[in-house]
């Protein structure tokens, strides 16, 4: 791998080597530019990945850890923020980022997602807005992402999906028992189940082998490279160009701004906590919807006293997260859901908001199993079941192979008051301000989650589950893995942070390309984040060639 000197001015400094950063690295280095990618986490390889529930779900081996990077939370600015003992926001923290440990759901947005404000009008208390781009603008890049990364699915199987210029490059993964039960029940209800599109290879593809169905996808790294993470796909291509250096264990603390208002590079802590300044002609932030706004807010200068690219005060605002409750069903025969990928069937029948429901919101529902042995024993039994002892042990033994989950993937309304700010008191292990989260779901979000939960229960009833139960506690929603909207995209510099090509309105050579760009949030964001990254890279490379950055 090429190595650059920090004093060497590279064309692009990308911060964050995750779902978006990996694509920026590959696209820009392939286009002939020199690229350094700073990643706060380690560079783990497939040989490092293990089937170890404790390591990845309890000890945060691949995600942020509160002992190292604390978070504080308040529901509104009127109350003091408290230091959290359970993560509210979670993100991948190694080369490949969240694309390494994600469940691998890979849903395109609908055409209507880009015009929610025009279609549904405003929602009181929310900052619902149209995107500055349309589905048609993004479609070629959805197709490119699916092809380059390797996505398994069945075009046309979802009657509601938007038009596509090409089918999925790979057929769907084999259906599991949860999928068979879900498909039968939803069809009986007149709904339209379809094979879940997954960023996991159902067949060998571009030098990578197919999924072996070991069952360790969600929270885990794939040791056979069947999951189409950026670690397994585009990052090796970027490194082979000889123009891209992935620099792990490099935790950025500030983006520097010159007297002319252009950014000049970034200061980061290296593995030994020494401060290093990497010089660059342009900076692209792909650090996720939490770390991107946090870093901008930490990058104050005399020119940007409120934080970089934050002249309108919107950096960190409009935080949106994954929403949706779980319903559980117990069945007579073993499903053995611990085998293979987490989910194989989904529906989009309730995706589009409908005024008849009396609230804004919609979402998808999938059939899945998110448990591993210890988490099932801890949390998997129905309410009222014993928590320990002989009877508890017998129930865990019987239910583990017979339980499935229906999970809703629901809309989360943008609200200006939901935000990422810098905590004034709490510091992380490097002495930097901790993330302070101000968040409360919009009343319509809650109504919508309950509406979808009723649909989930109806499906389980149609499936004749022996027992059905739900979990509607706040805790059941934690941690949030979709960190969205905090540097929203828009044409108007007064109401957005980046333009339609992800360029900061305030700074000509600064770009934000990750979940923070999303204007609205429905369901599964990774596919859209990656399509946006391909589109942004296309534009940024073109602009750079014409010295327009």
């Amino acid at each position: 791998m090429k190595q650059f000197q920090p004093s060497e001015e590279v064309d692009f400094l990308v911060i964050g080597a995750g779902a978006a950063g990996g694509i920026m690295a590959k696209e820009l280095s392939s286009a002939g530019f020199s690229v350094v990618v700073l990643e706060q986490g380690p560079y783990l390889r497939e040989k490092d990945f293990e089937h170890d529930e404790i390591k990845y779900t309890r000890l945060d081996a691949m995600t942020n850890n509160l002992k190292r990077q604390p978070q504080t939370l308040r529901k509104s600015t009127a109350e003091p923020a408290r230091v959290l003992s359970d993560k509210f926001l979670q993100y991948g923290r190694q080369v490949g980022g969240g694309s390494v440990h994600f469940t691998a759901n890979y849903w395109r947005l609908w055409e209507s997602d880009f015009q929610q404000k025009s279609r549904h009008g405003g929602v009181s208390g929310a900052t619902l807005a149209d995107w500055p781009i349309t589905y048609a603008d993004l479609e070629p890049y959805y197709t490119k992402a699916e092809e380059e990364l390797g996505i398994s699915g069945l075009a046309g199987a979802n009657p509601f999906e938007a038009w596509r210029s090409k089918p999925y490059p790979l057929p769907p993964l084999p259906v599991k028992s949860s999928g068979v039960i879900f498909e039968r029940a939803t069809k009986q209800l007149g709904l339209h189940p379809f094979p879940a599109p997954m960023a996991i290879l159902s067949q060998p593809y571009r030098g990578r082998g197919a999924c072996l169905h070991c069952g360790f996808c969600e929270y885990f790294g794939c040791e056979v490279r069947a999951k189409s993470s950026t670690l397994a796909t585009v990052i090796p291509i970027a490194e082979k160009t000889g123009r891209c250096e992935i620099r792990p264990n490099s935790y950025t603390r500030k983006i520097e701004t010159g007297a002319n208002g252009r950014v000049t590079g970034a200061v980061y802590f290296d593995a030994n906590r020494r401060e290093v300044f990497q010089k660059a002609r342009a900076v692209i932030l792909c650090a996720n919807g939490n770390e991107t706004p946090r870093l901008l807010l930490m990058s104050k200068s005399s020119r940007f006293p409120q934080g970089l690219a934050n002249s309108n005060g919107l950096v960190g605002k409009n935080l949106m997260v994954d929403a949706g409750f779980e319903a559980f069903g117990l069945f007579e025969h073993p499903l053995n859901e611990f085998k293979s990928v987490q989910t194989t069937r989904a529906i989009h029948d309730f995706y589009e908001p409908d005024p008849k429901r009396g609230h804004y919101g919609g979402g998808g529902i999938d059939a899945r199993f998110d448990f591993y042995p210890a988490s099932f024993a801890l949390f998997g039994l129905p309410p009222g079941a014993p928590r320990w002892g002989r009877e508890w042990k017998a129930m865990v033994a019987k239910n583990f192979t017979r339980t499935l989950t229906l999970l809703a993937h629901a809309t989360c309304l943008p609200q200006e008051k939901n935000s990422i700010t810098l905590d004034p008191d709490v510091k992380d292990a490097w002495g930097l301000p901790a993330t302070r989260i101000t968040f409360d779901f919009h009343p319509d979000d809650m109504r919508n989650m309950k509406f979808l939960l009723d649909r989930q229960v109806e499906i389980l009833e149609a499936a004749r589950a022996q027992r059905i139960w739900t979990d509607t506690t706040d805790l059941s929603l934690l941690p949030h893995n979709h960190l969205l909207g905090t540097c929203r995209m828009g044409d108007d510099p007064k109401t957005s942070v980046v333009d339609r090509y992800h360029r900061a309105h305030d700074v000509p050579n600064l770009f934000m390309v990750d979940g923070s760009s999303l204007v609205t949030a429905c369901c599964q964001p990774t596919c859209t984040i990656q399509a946006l990254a391909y589109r942004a890279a296309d534009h940024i490379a073109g602009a750079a060639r014409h010295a327009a950055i």
Partner: protein
Amino acid sequence: MTDNRISRRAWLALAPLSAAVLAAQEHAHEVMRSARPAAFSVLSSEEAREIEALASQIIPSDDSPGAREAGVIYFIDRALATFDADKGALYTEGMRRTQANRLELFPNSQSIAALRPAEQIRLLQAIENTEFFDLLRTHTILGFFGNPSYGGNRDLAGWKLIGFEDRFHFEPPFGYYDAEPQR
């Protein structure tokens, strides 16, 4: 060494063992394991015996192995020595209170381990709404169902109980319902 091997072979060559003999053999084996003095990092052998007595009612040994046979106490010791080192004080205080509860409930008792199983269950019922119990339950479950590399889940007792297999590779059909169409 040689004698050992010969005697072990001779032992295995015996006629099929009765369940009682097997249970006794297993018991002896466990006593030996539990008595291994150097095996604990932070717990004294007395603390370990008392905590294990509680864990063994959270996941009891019945017709399948429980927390005791799975070596959960070794997991707990390792957790307190490593990733949950900051929870040692909660254990110390929790056990102090639990011992006080024991003396209230069973004034003439000598230790938790010496209580009868029904008494141990009563003691756990007395503490089951405490923060310490939640931690002990979590550790017991992690030790029983977690990866054996942490010292518990011996002989994959936890995974065998629930029908989980940690395999590199599975082939469809995975369960009853996805096999149905092929039946």
